[in-house]
Structures are given as structure tokens and as C-alpha cells.
């Protein structure tokens, strides 16, 4: 019946995909998706390019209206021309970047500056441009599931698009058979863990500054739709002006072994059975508490770095609901902030113990174990804020929004809108762009310059995966 409306050359074709091998269908799907992605991106890029051009035009048109003399006009026209030449260079560079493959051999290691659970962080220099980056390597076999890589990349895309001054910028990522490489902006001021090891404790004013910046940083992460889940002093980095940025957290969500539910369960079970065997553990707590605070801090500090480098990681800042697998939401990050604030003022985190198991146990029964030592003088506001962050999630400050925390009396007088612009309490003194004096580099002397087993031949180069980061490039790369 319908054939009446069909054109004369209308063809009915019976599709028989089963004629093809089993690989053909997923390949067809992949080719389709690839092309769809390609056109979406092509249109987006065209729009963004237009916006950048219009912005430049606007800026220079406005200036032309305010001209009085002809000499001034010539000067303005000259400036306008330079601006468009620069824009052209940037646009051309961006187009080229999409073809550029990046591999380990494009970078030269300056120094190993950090170590995490799954690899090291190196200060590197890109050979052709001379630009400095922090390169984080992640051992792929240590990552929980290979197929989560795609998921991580998707998250990273979101991050790359949503530039925030509170989050470390990512410029490139690539991989070889063994490692995933992330090239980030280098933050020369080190991290909060190193700072706490150096200073033991901060005054309430200094603590207020770092905590206020962290509140804004965590809020920014939440606004992007992420829950960090692993906020700890090692992840809080200090930029060249002494302000705070959070390290890359695309990797935090369900990625590392230490984050999986079963993993916690296993540790808890192990911890539990040990505790039963050793009923004296309560007594050990008591002995610890009678130690002088100085001793306590010293013991904690000697173990702190070792813990940071171990695969178990440090559980000290993780919220109880994450261990208990009752479900959690963004407010688990506010708990972590409470634990960090405690450490800033007291010198060690609230549940520090001889072993990770012991710490888990204390966190789960935090009501009995959150203890403020008598010899530390905390203001009422500081203790109150910590207690309101380190409580059950249904009462926790920040569960509705970050404003709840900002309004707490501890933060009275903080100018939230321009804290990043004010002078930081510690501004790093840097002699060069490759100054690593804020990093415990002597601890990494035995770490090889290139990761063991990495592909240094350049054979497995990867596309630079930079599709979305041009806006950041304009700010930081030029």
C-alpha cells in the first residue's frame, strides 16, 4: 500500500549482519561512534573558535572608539594586528595539537618529586617547548579494573572542560603497555603533608586560611558533580603563590583498589579478627594517649610518609560511612576536611594508630575515639567546627551545601570571594622554574629516572588527547 508513495527507484534491502564475522558488528558500532563523536567535536570546535575570534574583535573594536589622535590610531591598529597574529598562532597550534602524538620520549626528567600508591610523580620538561610539568605515572596492573580506564577518561574530559583555579590542570595524558601517564601543571610549593611534617602544627589563623581555601576547592569539585572521597594532606598542593589546589581526582572514584567495597570489608574482617586475638588493644590506646604530644607527633611523623607511599594508603581521613558501605554522598569530603583541620591544629590526625586496621576500627566507632588532647588550646569555634564535620552524615555540616560551613563562626571575617587573591601565609621562595626544594626529593633518590619497564622507544605513542583544553592553554601555555 505504501509503495504508492515511494519513488520509482525505492529499494527494499534485507539487512543480514549475521553474514559477517563476530568482530564486524562491534567494529561497525565503534566506527559509527567514532564518526558521531568526530562531528560533534568538529562543530563544537568551530563554535569555540568563533567565540574566541569575536572576543578578540570586540576587545580591539572597543579600543578603536576611544581614539583621539592619528598616532594613537596607528598604535591601536598595530596592537590589533599583533593580537590577531597571536590568536592565529594559538588557533594553528591547537589544530596541530590534535595530530600530535605524545610519548615518554618527548619529556626529560628533571627530578622525582613524589610517590603515591601506584606510581611516582616526576618534574619533567617537554623537550621541544622547554615547558615544565608534573608527570604522574600509574602502574596499569595495579589499577583495579582495566575497563575503568575509559570511565576515567570520560571523567577527565569533564574536568578538562571545566577549568577551575582550585583543581590542578591536566595537559596531556598517554599510556604505554605498562603505565598511564598524566601531565599536569607543576605546583612548586609542595603539599600540605610535607608542610605539616615541617611545621608540626599551624596557628588558628593559618589553619583558617587553608581550611577556607579547601572549602572552596571541595565546593568546586562538588559543583562539577564529583565526590573526591580521598581528600588528604598529600592531595592538597600549594601553588607558586602559596594557594591551594586539589590534585587530579578523576582517578578517585572507584578506581584504586583501596576504594572498593570488598577491599574495605576484607581489611575490616582482618582487623576484627586481630582485635579479638589481641584484647589488649584498648590498653594500647590508653598508653598512646598518655604519651606526650611531642612523642605522639614524632611517632606519627616517622610513619606518615611510609604510609603515603604504601599501597594501603592512609585511611586516616576517610569518612566512616565509606567503610561501612552504607552508601555515601558528597558530605564524606567534609568529614575528611574535619580530620585535616584536626591535624593542622593538633599535629596528628584524630584516629592515628599503630596500624591501618586500628585506625579503621577507631573511625567506625569515632564517637568514642574523637578525642581532643588536654594540652592543646583550641578555641571553642575550632573544636566546634571539627566536631560538626566529624559526625554522622545526617548531622554533618555541609550536607546541604558548602554555605553551611562558610557561615560557621570559625570562619568569621573570611572574605570568600577573594581569598585566592590575598597573600598566603607561606609563599614559596623559588629560585627557578624547576626548583624542587619544597619536595622531599632525597627520599626518592633510589627511584629510577624513567619508570621501570616504561616504553622509552616512542613506539607506542598515543594521541595527546587534548581536544577540550584549549581554553586552559590560552591561560597557561602562552
Amino acid at each position, binding site marked *: 500500500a505504501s509503495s504508492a508513495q515511494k519513488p520509482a527507484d525505492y529499494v527494499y*534491502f534485507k539487512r543480514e549482519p549475521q553474514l559477517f564475522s563476530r568482530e564486524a558488528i562491534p567494529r561497525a558500532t565503534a566506527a559509527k561512534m567514532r564518526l558521531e563523536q568526530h562531528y560533534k567535536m568538529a*562543530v563544537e570546535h568551530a563554535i569555540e573558535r568563533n567565540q574566541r575570534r569575536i572576543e578578540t574583535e570586540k576587545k580591539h573594536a572597543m579600543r578603536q572608539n576611544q581614539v583621539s589622535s592619528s598616532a594613537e590610531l596607528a598604535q591601536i591598529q598595530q596592537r590589533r594586528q599583533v593580537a590577531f597574529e597571536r590568536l592565529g598562532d594559538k588557533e594553528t597550534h591547537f589544530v596541530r595539537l590534535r595530530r600530535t602524538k605524545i610519548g615518554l620520549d618527548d619529556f626529560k626528567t628533571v627530578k622525582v618529586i613524589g610517590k603515591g600508591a601506584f606510581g611516582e610523580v616526576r618534574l619533567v620538561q617537554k623537550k621541544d617547548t622547554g615547558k615544565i610539568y608534573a608527570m604522574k605515572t600509574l602502574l596499569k596492573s595495579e589499577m583495579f579494573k582495566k575497563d575503568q580506564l575509559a570511565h576515567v577518561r570520560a571523567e577527565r574530559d569533564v574536568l578538562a572542560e571545566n577549568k577551575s583555579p582550585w583543581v590542578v590542570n591536566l595537559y596531556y595524558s598517554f599510556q604505554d603497555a605498562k603505565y598511564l601517564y598524566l601531565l599536569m601543571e607543576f605546583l612548586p610549593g609542595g603539599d600540605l603533608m610535607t608542610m605539616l611534617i615541617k611545621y608540626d602544627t599551624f596557628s588558628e589563623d593559618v589553619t583558617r586560611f587553608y581550611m577556607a581555601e579547601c572549602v572552596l576547592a571541595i565546593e568546586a569539585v562538588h559543583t562539577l558533580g564529583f565526590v573526591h572521597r580521598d581528600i588528604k594532606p598529600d592531595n592538597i598542593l600549594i601553588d607558586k603563590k602559596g594557594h591551594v589546589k586539589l590534585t587530579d581526582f578523576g582517578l578517585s572514584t572507584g578506581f584504586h583498589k583501596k576504594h572498593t567495597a570488598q577491599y574495605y570489608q576484607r581489611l575490616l574482617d582482618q582487623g576484627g579478627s586481630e582485635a579479638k586475638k589481641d584484647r589488649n588493644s584498648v590498653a594500647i590506646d590508653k598508653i598512646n594517649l598518655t604519651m606526650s604530644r611531642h612523642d605522639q607527633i614524632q611517632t606519627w611523623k616517622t610513619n606518615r610518609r611510609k604510609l603515603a607511599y604504601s599501597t594501603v594508603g592512609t585511611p586516616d581521613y576517610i569518612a566512616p560511612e565509606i567503610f561501612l558501605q552504607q552508601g555515601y554522598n558528597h558530605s564524606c569530603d567534609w568529614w575528611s576536611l574535619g580530620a585535616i583541620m584536626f591535624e593542622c591544629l593538633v599535629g596528628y590526625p584524630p584516629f592515628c594508630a599503630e596500624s591501618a586496621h586500628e585506625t579503621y576500627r577507631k573511625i567506625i566507632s569515632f564517637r568514642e575515639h574523637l578525642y581532643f588532647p588536654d594540652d592543646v588550646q583550641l578555641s571553642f569555634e575550632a573544636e566546634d567546627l571539627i566536631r560538626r564535620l566529624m559526625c554522622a552524615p545526617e548531622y554533618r555540616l555541609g550536607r546541604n551545601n558548602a554555605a553551611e560551613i562558610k557561615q560557621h563562626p570559625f570562619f568569621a571575617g573570611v572574605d570568600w570571594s577573594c581569598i585566592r587573591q590575598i597573600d598566603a601565609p607561606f609563599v614559596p621562595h623559588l629560585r627557578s622554574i624547576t626548583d624542587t626544594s619544597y619536595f622531599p626529593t632525597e627520599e626518592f633518590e633510589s627511584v629510577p629516572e624513567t619508570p621501570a619497564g616504561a616504553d622509552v622507544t616512542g613506539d607506542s605513542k598515543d594521541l595527546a588527547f587534548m581536544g577540550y583544553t584549549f581554553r586552559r592553554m590560552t591561560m597557561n601555555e602562552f
Partner: protein
Amino acid sequence: PSSNSNPSKPLFLCQPFVKAALVKGSFKTIVVLPKHVDVNEWVAINLFDFFHNLNAFYGVISETVTIENNPTMSAGVNFDYTWIDQSRKLVKLPAPTYIDYVMVWVQSLLNDELVFPTKQHNYFQPTFPSSAKHIYKQLFRVFAHLYWAHFTSFLHLSLEGHLNSLFAHFVAFGTEFDLIDQRDVNGSGVGELMKLWKDQGTLDL
């Protein structure tokens, strides 16, 4: 059972397939040289993308492209493309061999820092426009053969809309930057297709 009234007419020229498309609207937005961008850089990234996308489509159906079924690089009725061998002689090659040569050759050029520079202080050679034209020409021939000899495979896998858009984009780009060699077009099946699309307004450049 096909009810094709004109069985000799290739399926890609027939309704509804000739109209199948992934993208709507003019390709102008993504084809024309963006203001302030270097033309070589723009041609380079587009050839790069066309190569990778075409390679992905060829990869899907390559299992059906055999030497036995495709003794020549056919693209129309009595229309075969020839390859210039090392002694500069024109030779007819089986299609899979021909396509392999093209793909390996283009890939090696794309990886050649002298032809397709990517590093900070490397620039395009004055010969780049002519290299680009060569690459475009060979990629065009691969499209032409895939349409002529393998379109039903794409139909079976429901890829015709995507393939049409990729090829239409490729033609629009070749037209804009004067890369198309009419000797490869006239007499080929895709030559007919390009005419039809022009008349329909699918290709409005």
C-alpha cells in the same frame, strides 16, 4: 527479495540509501578554512581525520575484500584505478593489495615529521600542497572502490548514513581546497553519486 526496478543501478544511487545521512545541514561550517588558521595546518588535520575515519570504515568490512572477489581496484563500469609501481609502470592491482598500499603509504606520511610536522619548531615544506593532493587522490579512490564494490556490506551493517556523510564531507573538503582530480571522478560510480547529491542539494559547496 529486492524490488529494484532497475537492477543494474548501484544501490548507493537508489532510494532510500542515496539520501541516508548522519549529519544535517551544510558542511561549510566545518570545511571552510577558519579565520586566522594556517591553511596547511587545516588541510593536514582534515586529511589526518579523513584517513582515520576511512580506515575505521574499511576495517569493518575488510574481511569481505578478497583478492579473488576484487581482482582490480574497480570504481565503475569498466573503470579501474591503476597503481604506479617502482619502475613507474601503471599496474592493475587487486583491490585489497591496492588499499593496503594506500593505507600504509598514507600512514607513513602522517608519521613523517618532515611531511606532517607536529613538533614546536618544525614547519610544513613548500611541497606540502602537492603531497596533500596525492593523499587526497588515493583516499578518494578507496572511497570510490568501497562504494562501487562493497556498498551492500555497509548496508548489511547499517553504516550507509555514516558512510555517506563521511564521503560527502570528504568531497566538500576536496572541492573547497581544489584537491579533486576529475579524471578519477568521471566514469566512476561515486561520480554519479556526487552529481545526484549536487542536484539534491546534499552538496551545497
